[in-house]
């Protein structure tokens, strides 16, 4: 498959898998307003995923001369075909883990989509422009939570520091290029670190140093957690092929 199809699938899978993870909070949020907030963010992510899947389906259908649907791409591919960033598939721990992951994710997503927006592919550029408006809400919301928990009580500070230990090793993958990527991700690292540091300074948090960084998601090498997500996500289409609402 062409680089542009692979890149589109990576972005689709990434938005879908984090959306699926975040959706586990539905009706379990700490208070009603925040339950609604995280599920709204999830809805945006699933919407972004759909735009990418629809476009990938169009490109694949054209190049392989058969009809592939967005649903087939989301529901009928297996782990090794998924290209999502590993950080998305990590199981939920607590609220601190969820808001910190969203903060790392959205801060990178913004930088990446600002590059995508400049790409010569007009559909990818259009999806990026539309998504950026939504991502800015996600960054604002998650930044406020990182500060609130980091600079909050001993308990909240402990929890966000624990989340930091779990999540940090999965942030390096953002900047490790995959061979098909049409955007050069390496140069975004410096900018990303600066934006994280700005919020961490306010939150009283310190960025870990010299930590081994995990990678593999972009080329289909995943943690053991992805299979469990897919078995739940894809169950209906696997058990009842072609089922529709």
């Amino acid at each position, binding site marked *: 498959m062409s680089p542009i199809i692979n890149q589109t699938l990576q972005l689709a899978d990434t938005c879908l898998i984090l959306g699926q993870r975040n959706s586990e909070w539905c009706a379990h949020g700490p208070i009603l307003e925040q339950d609604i*907030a995280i599920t709204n963010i999830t809805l*945006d992510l699933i*919407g972004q995923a759909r*735009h990418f899947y629809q476009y990938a389906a169009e490109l694949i259908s054209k190049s392989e001369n058969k009809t592939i649907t967005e649903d087939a791409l989301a529901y009928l591919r297996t782990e090794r075909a998924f290209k999502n960033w590993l950080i998305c598939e990590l199981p939920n721990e607590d609220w601190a883990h969820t808001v910190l992951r969203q903060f790392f994710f959205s801060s990178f997503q913004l930088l990446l989509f600002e590059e995508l927006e400049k790409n010569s592919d007009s*559909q990818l550029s259009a999806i990026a422009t539309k998504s950026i408006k939504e991502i*800015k809400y996600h960054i604002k*919301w998650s930044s*406020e939570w990182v500060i609130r928990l980091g600079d909050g009580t001993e308990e909240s500070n402990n929890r966000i520091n624990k989340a930091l230990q779990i999540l940090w090793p999965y942030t390096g993958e953002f900047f490790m290029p995959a061979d098909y990527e049409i955007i050069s991700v390496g140069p975004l690292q410096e900018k990303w670190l600066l934006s994280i540091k700005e919020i961490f300074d306010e939150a009283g948090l310190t960025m870990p140093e010299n930590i081994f960084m995990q990678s593999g998601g972009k080329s289909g090498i995943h943690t053991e957690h992805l299979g469990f997500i897919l078995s739940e996500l894809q169950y209906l289409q696997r058990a009842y092929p072609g089922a529709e609402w």
Partner: protein
Amino acid sequence: MVNHTSLNQKEKILSLLEQVADPEIPVLTILDLGMVRDIICKDEETEIVITPTYSGCPATDTIAFDIKLKLLENGYTNVKVSYTLTPAWTTDWMTDKGKEKLKEYGIAPPKNKSVNDNSMRIQKMLFDQEDCIECPRCQSTNTVLLSQFGSTACKALHQCNDCKEPFDYFKCH
């Protein structure tokens, strides 16, 4: 909205689209929301081009279905609804009539022009309060933002400090 379609024909279709409401905020039509981007009549086919509000808004599919249904009911046999993402939808396209209707319905309409200035840094806007959103019930401007995310993707949740009622605000986007 431009093109190929004669004015008379277009006006007829517009008057039908005027009757297609947002399923989640039924006082607003899809024209009030600025979702209809183009009407193209080619041979026998009528194509309506719409743009989604938020990427994941579940109303989008329903709206496409409702457009088809409305036109089919009125004698258009070959109807196609297609989507465009450019330019990205903004609340700036909401009509004044739409804003009035929102307010009567109990939802505060978007107050400012949407700001799409990339130089504006989010990090400088944290814990900000959107200034003086007017309570749609008692018109007080002594109100407070409870959450940037509300009952649908397009709304934020505010509360009035005077009448104490919480209310939805259709946020600038």
